[in-house]
């Protein structure tokens, strides 16, 4: 079937901000979709609220709207742009739900818009639990004994019939939000209530638990003619019971016989055909480990995190093919872009093993609940490819960037065997290492299998690694012969770990390998196991006999990517990496990228000239550099992951492009940086450094409390805290020193001023500052968690001049070539420098989009020797246009139980949205709306609970809310102050008192907003913590800073005004 001719303009809905369960994979899918549509000459209209994405670039779509993802906004866009079709299945659950709402509200009919690809009915059949179950029963596919309930009572009734354990999942949610396993009545009551509330249709599925069964997924594609294929299958190493997003996953399945593999494959094809899906789809099965019994668990009738993983694991571009199918093409008409000769209607054959490991935020959130279950908690993931399971697993472990160079976790080695045996039962982020430790101790495979459900096949593979590690420990470096070293490298043991085990220097190991000729070769991911000639420049390292990569002679630049998405280093850095690639290509260079994040655009093999899917550690990066022999290496665009590698790259004799390594160090090293500031006469908050608790306390005493405590060389303010007392210092230092610190801990005077941020590009001579961003929240809240506004509103021209002067002075003094990010603090008319990052930053996509200045491209051109003054964008500070923008952080608190909601100096947000308008109130309104806060238009109930020091300030705020017509509730102390000042407020009991009003009000959702400003310090004020947790878990906006509250008020005022916000197209500004 050729492409349908009546499709000329298509609306694509993105997935919005990055949250747990919905991350960069949808930028990858959306970007592929946009490119595929444009390839077909279709006019693309894109709506997404996330500014950090590639898909919201002006060159990705004909019309780009960075607007809140609400039905109202989409209708406005439809009215303005008149698309004839909509593509609903590429924007994750958010995009799909929105498209379904448009259909339900009759808007598609009203505007005559066709839904491309899978039909509304098919989506309903897959998404609605009851319909899905019935469809499966009709085609004889087994589903788990289950029921759908809309009330807690019904849930109890079912439990009485079938018994525990039971699994619960709310309908229409992402990442299993609100799901869980109930082993008894108490748990059932809690989880059922949660789930019902969180589900868009207030439905919860309850089913008999199949915990411990194999969890197998198939990625399936079907076209309009009914042709269907499976792209690949994947096996979760963690069996049923852990969300697939939180599981270690291998592709293809490794423990299934052909009969088992084919049984589930056939089931997959039957299911996708019965549902009538046109495009990509993910099907999850539970397979009994000891029979052919299986159940269909879930179907996602859209591209997903798993389909991104499958695409990267196989080289088969699922999102692109799905888009072409939506346009009417058959699978047998779409070319396989890897071979250029074959078609998309085939099933990839892998000749390697792929391992994915989730990246959890628990290295930052040390107090959050680390238990893994049916609710996803990982923020990102890494993928590795190898010719053995062992090497793929180890490469994935290194890619996590958590400091592991082997399967050994030092804190476990001090535990007793009994403690390890106990730990085995816990499903958490450290399970892989606990299992390895258990195997090291000689605990039997049988026992570990019984406790973890992990298949013995995998456990035996882990034994291979552990035994090899143990053998090495008994060897000296001289005994390290060729076969041993070959075996080690074939299993992926790192040079660093080998060196440690045999007590040698890492350089000795590398030398030995070179001597023995044990050097990696690079193999191609080609979709067909070498059966056909392939042209995909997509490589992974292996220790085989034939190398397949043949880098040309010169004109090559290697770009270091940013690895897995984590708090503090998100999709923004992938945006930067991809733009760096594009800019280099434009300049005529070959752009080569090293990265390991399967979710991202940068690891799409047709973005760069060559893609190496490898860990970002010195060993693996230097291996690639040795093979490529590039003209230089770009380290500015991959966030802290790339900056950390500067030393190794430089010492190995490769050229670091842009800012010289010694100056990167100068900006990162506290002492040198302080000296530089002193020399330039630029003030910074007073500070000092310390290694020990005592030293830290001394510094703090000298500066006077409060002080900021943080480790050096970190991202996202990791481990950063404000200490108000000596005991705070003791506590924070002990947390920081849990992991060995190579660099001293930094202690600074904490000043509550206004934070201001700039990104600038410098060519060594001129500088260009596209704009200044002002933070709404006072210093003390991490810049990534603050609302950032462009252009600034409260910054005087005198301060602006200072900002420009300091930026120029610093950039020149640091010999910046390329990007620099500076964070300032204004306090009592004085400007301080808090931090300088000699690299691209989180705000680069934001500022590039709102100013229209392609910052990355300019930076790359400057790095490669061009002059800013010749680029046509001017120099110095560029004056703002008419657009006002507010970047609002988005959190995933509901996914991370026990995590403190109150904001502080350590970053907590997982993503961001942008509000763009012609005035600040409207920008804020859009920003808050996009972030998911329902703005009730001046009616509703607000709970105010404020720490004593803020009570006066809170009075004015409360008065404003009252004026707008809000009903005020306040906790005792706050209420007393309000009433005293003549503001009517109803007192509510604290939680500790009997008859907890607040609990009930939050649970009944009779509250619309919680403003809770906690006491600072780590004094556990349990009431506040609970109120905040309860609010976020019940989807009630919870504001923990007065500054945010004022901004929110501003947005509310906007919403009650006459003027309706208008949608702004990025292409028009």
């Amino acid at each position: 079937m050729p492409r349908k001719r009546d499709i000329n303009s298509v609306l694509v809905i993105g997935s919005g901000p990055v949250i747990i369960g919905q991350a960069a994979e949808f930028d990858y899918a959306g970007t592929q979709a946009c490119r595929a549509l444009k390839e077909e000459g279709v006019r693309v209209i894109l709506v997404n609220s996330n500014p950090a994405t590639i898909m919201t670039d002006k060159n990705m779509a004909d019309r780009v709207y960075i607007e809140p993802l609400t039905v109202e906004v989409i209708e406005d866009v439809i009215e303005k742009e008149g698309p004839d079709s909509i593509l609903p299945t590429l924007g994750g659950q958010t995009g799909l739900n929105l498209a379904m709402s448009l259909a339900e509200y009759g808007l598609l009919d009203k505007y005559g818009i066709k839904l491309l690809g899978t039909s509304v009915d098919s989506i309903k059949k897959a998404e609605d639990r009851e319909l899905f179950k019935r469809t499966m029963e009709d085609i004889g596919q087994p589903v788990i004994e289950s029921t759908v309930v809309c009330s807690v009572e019904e849930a109890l009734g079912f439990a009485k019939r079938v018994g525990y354990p039971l699994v619960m999942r709310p309908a229409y949610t992402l990442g299993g939000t609100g799901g869980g396993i109930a082993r008894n009545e108490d748990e059932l009551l809690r989880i059922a209530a949660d789930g019902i509330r969180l589900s868009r249709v207030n439905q919860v599925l309850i089913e008999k638990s199949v915990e411990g069964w194999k969890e197998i997924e198939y990625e399936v594609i079907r076209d309009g003619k009914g042709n269907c294929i499976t792209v690949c299958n994947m096996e979760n190493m963690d069996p049923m019971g852990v969300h697939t997003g939180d599981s270690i996953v291998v592709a293809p399945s490794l423990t299934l016989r052909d009969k088992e593999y084919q049984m589930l494959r056939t089931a997959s094809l039957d299911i996708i055909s019965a549902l009538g899906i046109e495009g990509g789809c993910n099907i999850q099965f539970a397979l009994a480990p000891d029979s052919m019994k299986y159940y269909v668990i879930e179907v996602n009738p859209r591209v997903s995190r798993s389909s991104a993983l499958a695409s990267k694991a196989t080289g088969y571009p699922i999102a692109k093919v799905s888009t072409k199918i939506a346009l009417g093409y058959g699978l047998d008409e779409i070319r396989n872009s890897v071979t250029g000769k074959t078609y998309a209607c085939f099933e990839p054959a892998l000749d390697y093993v792929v391992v994915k490991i989730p990246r959890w935020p628990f290295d930052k959130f040390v107090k959050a609940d680390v238990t893994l279950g049916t609710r996803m908690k990982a923020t990102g993931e890494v993928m590795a490819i190898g010719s053995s399971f062992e090497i793929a697993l180890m490469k994935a472990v290194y890619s996590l960037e958590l400091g592991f160079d082997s399967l050994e976790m030092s804190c476990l080695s001090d535990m007793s065997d009994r403690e390890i045996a106990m730990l085995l039962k816990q499903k958490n982020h450290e399970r892989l290492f606990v299992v390895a430790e258990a195997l090291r101790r000689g605990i039997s495979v049988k026992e570990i299998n019984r406790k973890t459900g992990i298949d013995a096949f995998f456990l035996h593979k882990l034994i291979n690694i552990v035994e090899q590690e143990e053998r090495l420990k008994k060897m000296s470096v001289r005994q390290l012969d060729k076969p041993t070293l070959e075996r080690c490298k074939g299993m992926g043991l790192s040079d660093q770990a080998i060196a440690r085990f045999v007590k040698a220097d890492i350089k000795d190991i590398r030398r030995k390998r070179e001597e023995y000729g044990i050097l990696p070769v690079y193999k191609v991911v080609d979709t067909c196991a070498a059966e056909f000639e392939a042209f995909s420049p997509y490589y992974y390292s292996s220790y085989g006999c034939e190398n397949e990569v043949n880098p040309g002679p010169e004109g090559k630049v290697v770009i270091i990517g940013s690895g897995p998405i984590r708090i503090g280093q998100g999709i923004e850095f992938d945006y930067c990496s991809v733009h760096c690639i594009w800019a280099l290509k434009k300049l005529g260079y070959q752009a080569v990228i090293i990265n390991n994040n399967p979710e991202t655009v940068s690891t799409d093999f047709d973005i760069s000239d060559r893609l190496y899917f490898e860990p970002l550690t010195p060993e693996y990066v230097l291996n690639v550099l040795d093979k490529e022999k590039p003209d230089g290496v770009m380290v500015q665009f991959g966030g802290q992951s790339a900056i950390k590698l500067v030393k190794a790259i430089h010492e190995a004799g490769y050229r670091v492009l842009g800012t010289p390594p010694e100056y990167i160090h100068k900006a990162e090293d506290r002492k040198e940086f302080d000296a530089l500031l002193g020399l330039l006469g630029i003030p910074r908050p007073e500070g000092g450094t310390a290694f020990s608790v005592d030293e830290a306390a001394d510094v703090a005493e000298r500066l006077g409390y409060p002080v900021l405590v943080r480790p050096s060389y970190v991202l996202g303010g990791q481990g950063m805290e404000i200490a108000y007392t000596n005991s705070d210092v003791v506590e924070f230092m002990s947390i920081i020193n849990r992991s060995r610190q190579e660099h001293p801990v930094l202690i600074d005077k904490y000043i509550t001023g206004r934070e201001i941020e700039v990104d600038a590009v410098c060519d060594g001579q001129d500088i260009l500052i596209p704009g200044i961003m002002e933070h709404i929240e006072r210093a003390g809240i991490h810049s990534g968690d603050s609302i950032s506004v462009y252009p600034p509103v409260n910054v005087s021209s005198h301060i602006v001049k200072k900002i420009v002067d300091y930026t120029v002075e610093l950039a020149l003094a640091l010999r910046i070539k390329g990007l620099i990010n500076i964070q300032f603090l204004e306090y009592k008319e004085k400007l301080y420098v808090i931090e300088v990052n000699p690299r691209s930053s989180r705000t680069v996509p934001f500022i590039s989009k709102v100013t229209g200045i392609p910052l990355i491209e300019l930076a790359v051109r400057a790095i490669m020797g061009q002059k800013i003054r010749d680029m046509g964008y001017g120099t110095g500070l560029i004056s703002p246009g008419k657009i006002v923008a507010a970047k609002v952080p988005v959190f995933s608190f509901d996914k991370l139980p026990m995590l403190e909601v109150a904001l502080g100096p350590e970053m907590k947000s997982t993503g961001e949205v942008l509000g763009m308008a012609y005035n600040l109130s409207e920008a804020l309104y859009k920003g808050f709306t996009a972030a998911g806060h329902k703005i009730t238009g001046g009616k509703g109930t607000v709970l105010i609970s404020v720490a004593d020091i803020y009570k006066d300030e809170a009075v004015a705020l409360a008065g404003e809310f009252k004026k707008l017509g809000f009903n005020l509730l306040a906790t005792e102390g706050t209420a007393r102050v309000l009433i005293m000042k003549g503001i009517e407020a109803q007192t509510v009991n604290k939680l500790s008192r009997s008859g907890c009003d607040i609990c009930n009000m939050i649970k009944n959702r009779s509250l619309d907003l919680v403003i809770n400003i906690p006491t600072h310090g780590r004094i556990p004020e349990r009431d506040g913590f609970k109120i905040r947790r309860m609010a976020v878990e019940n989807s009630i906006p919870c504001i923990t800073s007065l500054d945010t509250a004022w901004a929110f008020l501003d947005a509310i005022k906007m919403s009650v005004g006459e003027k309706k916000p208008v949608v702004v197209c990025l292409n028009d500004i």
Partner: protein
Amino acid sequence: MDRKGFLVLEDGTVFEGTYFGAQDRVMGEVVFNTGMTGYQEVLTDPSYYGQIVVMTFPLVGNYGINEIDIESEIPRVRGFVVKEACKRPNNWKATQTLGEYLCKNAIVAIEGIDTRALTRKIRTKGTMKGLITPDIPTEENIVRLNEYRLDKPVEHVTVKNVYTIPGEGIHVAVIDFGVKRNIIESLKARNCRITVFPAGTQAEQILNVDPDAVLLTNGPGDPKDNIQAVETIKVLVECKPVLGICLGHQLLALAAGADTEKLKFGHRGSNHPVVDLTRGRTYITSQNHGYTVKDETIDSKRIEITHRNLNDGTIEGLRYKDRSVFGVQFHPEACPGPGDTGFLFDRFLDLAGN
């Protein structure tokens, strides 16, 4: 103790690995299979008789060897080459490891080979003969390799005597050129009464049992080695519905006056797309063949091409225009691989039933 083993190709390329099956010297045609599962079915598929099979998936033997996933009683490959053979498999059906099974059945196997490099070599140069040997390869080896020829492989795998499998339904005569067990199972599942004949059986003898239909099975080697069978088929197609699978399909073509030729490196795997030209649908099929029917030798008055490979356009299915006779190059019985075209058995039996 691990013993070194070498794989020598006729172009002189040498791969070094380690024995994990029988530690003998063997010669055979080296072919690769791209299936990611199904090694036990591959090992026991009679069509691989005399060949050294390379698995492109690097981890083989993960789920061990069991009693049921067999396509004939014994392993038929001459040699087996993998990247890594699993020593400690796990599966609820497994009774032994791959290595144990191969040793017991005296099948030569080596591991530790860069199978991707080997596959690329075969893909570029075409199928080559190879030698697995424990000794450092010599020039002499290569001369011997060039002389080596596999003689009438079908005779080694076909059944010796006629046998029948009772059933209530349609009576199918199966001519066994090296039948895969699941072809028989597919007929049994459809209630057929089955009479299996050796490859050299005369048409008359087959017609004597008065079957409703005839199935020509898969089998090893060059189709043109089976002159006798082609003559038999010429008779059978005149009076019975016939289905040819793989070698059987090629023999049907030969019987209709067409010619066959050797493919550069064949199709072996579980992911080959085949277009059903009559329905406009594409199916993923299981394949194992080194020869193909030559396009230009087809007499279009007699034969309709019904299926083509989506990748290389080679003929994957044909039909006698005025007869209930058709053949497919791929394996509707799957095992290993997808069973998406299993309905062809129904179509065949429908023809036989009418």
